[in-house]
């Protein structure tokens, strides 16, 4: 890899050349071969999406030949009652899933960060296994569970299965925030006379709030886009949008799929940008929260306790 500029080490290199070299290594310079590979990678990553967006505005029926601009596929999308009902269902499932995951994930995060070693250890092992499990295994398993228990497959079974795979994301993100918190802040609140529970509510919760919101928004995206788990837990009746797309593709490729893809891209993109804004807010807050408390009577009091 001829990526790093060949800095010839010489015994005579004094202070000034070393400094220049460091600037060259650290600065924003362009190792051409690496940027070439990266550019190719980005083209390969984004070209299929560009193709979908382009063909969603195609005026012809052809899947492969662009013949002009039209919005006919969008109008046939919005006119199709069955597709719209799938969009609504996916929205409802994703929203319910997001709310449940925000609560369940935050509770789990507190137990992971502050529970006893036994509880947090066994929980984090299970959470990790859940994060790594291929969806097909848990999807098939959920299907078998519901049929064993004679539970009719419905939007509720889909939501319940979605929560099972996505609340762990909230738990992991919020846990890492909680672990990074300065414990002195809560102790300070307790010193000022509130109960430990109230200190958590008044101090820790506002600090992890952006992480909860951001990861829950991501859960919305995961649930809205989820195919495999939905596929195995959807019964008769209206399927969620990704399962609808699967059925459409099985009956033959149609350009409407492009329009659906773009609508989903815009929806999840907006939610993802909101999540990103929350993360940005959090990092700005981080620079505002002091690492250690200033030397006030409160911090001295903590010093006595510690």
């Amino acid at each position: 890899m001829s990526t790093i500029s060949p800095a010839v080490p010489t015994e005579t290199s004094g202070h000034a050349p070393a400094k220049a070299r460091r600037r060259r290594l650290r600065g924003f310079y362009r190792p051409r071969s690496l940027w070439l590979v990266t550019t190719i990678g980005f083209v390969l990553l984004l070209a299929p999406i560009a193709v979908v967006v382009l063909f969603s505005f195609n005026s012809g029926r052809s899947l492969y030949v662009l013949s002009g601009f039209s919005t006919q596929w969008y109008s046939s999308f919005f006119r199709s009652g069955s597709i719209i009902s799938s969009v609504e269902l996916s929205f409802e499932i994703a929203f319910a899933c997001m709310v449940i995951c925000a609560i369940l994930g935050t509770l789990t995060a507190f137990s992971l960060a502050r529970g006893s070693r036994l509880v947090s250890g066994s929980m984090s092992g299970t959470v990790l296994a859940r994060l790594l499990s291929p969806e097909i295994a848990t999807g098939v398993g959920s299907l078998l569970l519901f049929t064993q228990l004679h539970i009719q497959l419905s939007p509720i079974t889909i939501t319940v299965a979605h929560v099972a795979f996505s609340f762990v994301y909230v738990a992991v993100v919020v846990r890492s925030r909680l672990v990074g918190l300065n414990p002195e802040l809560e102790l300070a609140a307790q010193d000022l006379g509130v109960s430990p529970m109230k200190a958590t509510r008044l101090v820790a919760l506002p600090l992890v709030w952006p992480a909860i919101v951001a990861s829950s928004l991501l859960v919305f995206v995961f649930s809205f886009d989820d195919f495999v788990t939905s596929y195995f837990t959807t019964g008769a009746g209206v399927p969620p949008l990704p399962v609808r797309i699967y059925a459409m593709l099985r009956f033959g490729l149609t350009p409407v799929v492009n329009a659906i893809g773009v609508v989903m891209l815009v929806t999840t993109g907006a939610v993802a940008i909101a999540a990103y804004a929350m993360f940005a807010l959090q990092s700005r807050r981080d620079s505002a929260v002091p690492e250690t408390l200033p030397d006030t009577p409160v911090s001295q009091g903590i010093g006595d306790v510690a």
Partner: protein
Amino acid sequence: MRQRFWNALALPGGAWLVVLFIAPLGIVLAYSFGTTNIVNQAIFGWHPANYLAVTKSFYAPIVLRTLLYSVLATLASILLGYPMAYTIARFGGRWRLILVGLVLVPWLVDYLVRIYAWVIILGDNGLLNTWLHDLGFSGSPPLTIVTTAPAVVIGLVYDYFPLMVLPIYMAVDQLDLDLIEASRDLGANGWRSFCRVIFPLTKHGVAAGCILVFLPMLGDFATAQFLGGPGTSMIGNLINEDFIGSGYPPYGAVLTMLIVIVLLVSMAATSIARAVSRLRESRSEAAWPVSTTSAA
């Protein structure tokens, strides 16, 4: 007292995981030893011989093919993902977060629409073949890709690529640049410093990426269904056929357990590797105390 309260908060999430993660996998395990009644409904039983099904002439090639495709797609993800993650993390400057965001953009498009996009590009009448035809390549189509193994591997790489880039990005991000500079000062050329310093210090990111992409690739079925042909079915297609189609559910359960076993083995391997490296670190620190602050 307080400890007990924090422990109690694990209850709802733990219950959810027990009922909807561990119990379902337990049922799959039970099914894998089961059999079916006359209407092909799964019933429990004790038939360990089900596991020999994977060695049968129908299943064995598909299992091996799935492993081969997943390994190839994982290697391709490393070859493309490592340089990308490295470049973004080290040289991205203030654009790095936006560039990482761009890597994630494909995920905002529905999984099936992404696969379908590759059919538009690589299909027999697709964009690539149209261009090749216009360039004067003969044959109709000039290049058959969809229905062949390369199309499935390309699709698999595309499906899970961000999961390879993100952990490598984080590993490179934590890299101490002074160490690279030190290796250069000691006379290593770029390649040597990559092999001896940069890669060893970021290989945990590569390992994490491998696990994150390899496991879902093993269970994928839509990619092979839409980008593959008759000779490219994967384990996921069999599982789908056995449970949703008209296959034999116990065999589907056996194949699912196969994926779960790979999951458990890779989790065990990671935790062992982590323990070993921690042990080695503490030993080398004891033998050679490194202090960064007192160097004068």
